[in-house]
């Protein structure tokens, strides 16, 4: 579904992604973890071209992401992206947030879009908040709306960039539950996250990154009990120490 081939990215002289090659198969859930500045957010943002690459190839559902004639806007509707800072549009109601893209980009009729939005809101547990505004919701609620907004276009895959890092601890659970239910329903997911419990429960693969390189790819059980790479071992022990 998502194939990285020899992906390289530089910020000026800083080599942010170094020869990254990896695959996310259809229906798989991949968790990308690693210390700060390891390039995990950068990697996930290259899939829908929020970041560009200078070398290498990225294929999404068979489509070369950096192809010359690509209709970028239509392509992006097929990649569901959830941001760390939620980035809901504060001047639109929850319902309007969700139907904005389907109606404006895909030309879906408002009535149909609204029905779909309400279904999605029910799925994330927020059907009562359809007419509320983001400023009136808690962080956890906002992030769940953001997930619904990304799902509104039926993307074949969802990307999550540290979806719970900006949340107060008591709200992390509600967002993770939504993500777990998505995973159990067979959605292809690529998540950058520090939530190791989540990784253990639903991930099919864990990728460990440091300094722009994927140092280890393993099944969660194997990764958490017997990591091979010394850097990964150090990372996990740091994580456990508190």
């Amino acid at each position, binding site marked *: 579904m998502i194939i990285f081939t020899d992906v390289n990215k530089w910020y000026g002289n800083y080599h942010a992604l170094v020869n990254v090659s990896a695959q996310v198969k259809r229906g798989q859930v991949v968790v990308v973890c690693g210390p700060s500045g390891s390039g995990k957010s950068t990697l996930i943002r290259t899939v*829908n071209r*929020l970041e560009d690459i200078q070398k290498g190839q990225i294929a999404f559902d068979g489509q070369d992401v950096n192809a010359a004639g690509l209709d970028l*806007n*239509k*392509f*992006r*509707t097929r*990649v569901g*992206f959830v*941001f760390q*800072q939620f*980035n*809901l*549009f*504060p*001047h639109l109601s929850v319902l309007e947030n969700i139907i*904005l*893209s389907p109606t*404006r*980009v*895909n030309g879906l009729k408002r009535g149909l879009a609204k029905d779909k939005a309400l279904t999605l809101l029910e799925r994330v547990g927020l059907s009562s908040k359809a007419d*509320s*505004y*983001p*400023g*009136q*919701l808690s962080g956890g609620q906002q992030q769940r709306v953001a997930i619904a*907004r*990304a799902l509104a*276009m039926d993307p074949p895959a969802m990307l999550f960039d540290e979806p719970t890092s900006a949340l107060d601890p008591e709200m992390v659970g509600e967002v993770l539950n939504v993500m777990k239910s998505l995973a159990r329903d067979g959605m292809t997911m690529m998540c950058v996250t520090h939530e190791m419990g989540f990784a253990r429960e639903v991930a099919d693969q864990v990728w460990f990154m440091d300094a722009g390189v994927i140092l280890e790819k393993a099944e969660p059980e194997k990764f958490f009990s017997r990591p091979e790479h010394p850097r990964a071992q150090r990372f996990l022990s740091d994580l456990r120490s508190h």
Partner: protein
Amino acid sequence: MLKGIVLTLELTVASWLLALVLGTVLATVRMTNHRLAKIVVGCFVAYHRNVPMLVQIMMWYFALPSLLPVSAQLWINQFNGEFLYSVIAIGLCMAAYVSEDIRSGLRAIPFGQFEASRALGLSYIGSMRFVILPQAMRIAVPPLINHTVLLFKNTSLAMAIGVAELTYATRQIENYTFRTFEAYFLASACYLALSLALMGAGALLARHYRIPGSK
């Protein structure tokens, strides 16, 4: 005095339109991140914010016509030159302020909003239209209203070059009739009424477009 009020209003509207259009153009140019564009716009804004309005009017009326050929000067003077120069001076000065207001409105929007709208598939124009500009305008409207009131009051400076707007007319009335207090009281009342009306309209506008749930 009525003619003075009318002329004041004409000055205000003309300068305001010029300021709004030019200010938007300047803000858009500055957003292109082109190095030369930013320097040019930056200089324009710096000049108009640091040089007094009166001096700017003098520049346009006394100094700059000397650059034009004599025939052009005569032609302009035929068509109410003072009015034209005042409109240009006030309009350009306020355009600098308007562009700064729009710019600060845009800068107040977190870049993540733009990223999110692009990630949803909206085009550049779509993002601007549905996400960025609605939010930026709400932020920019209060300072824009303030600067509109300022523009309105600055029209009084045109009297220095002989434009027969309200302040000039008041002085004339006072010269002829010596009813100083009434004349100035009436004129001040007019200015005050219009300023308050503008500020009130602004407050109504801000309240109508308030985003529920924002602080």
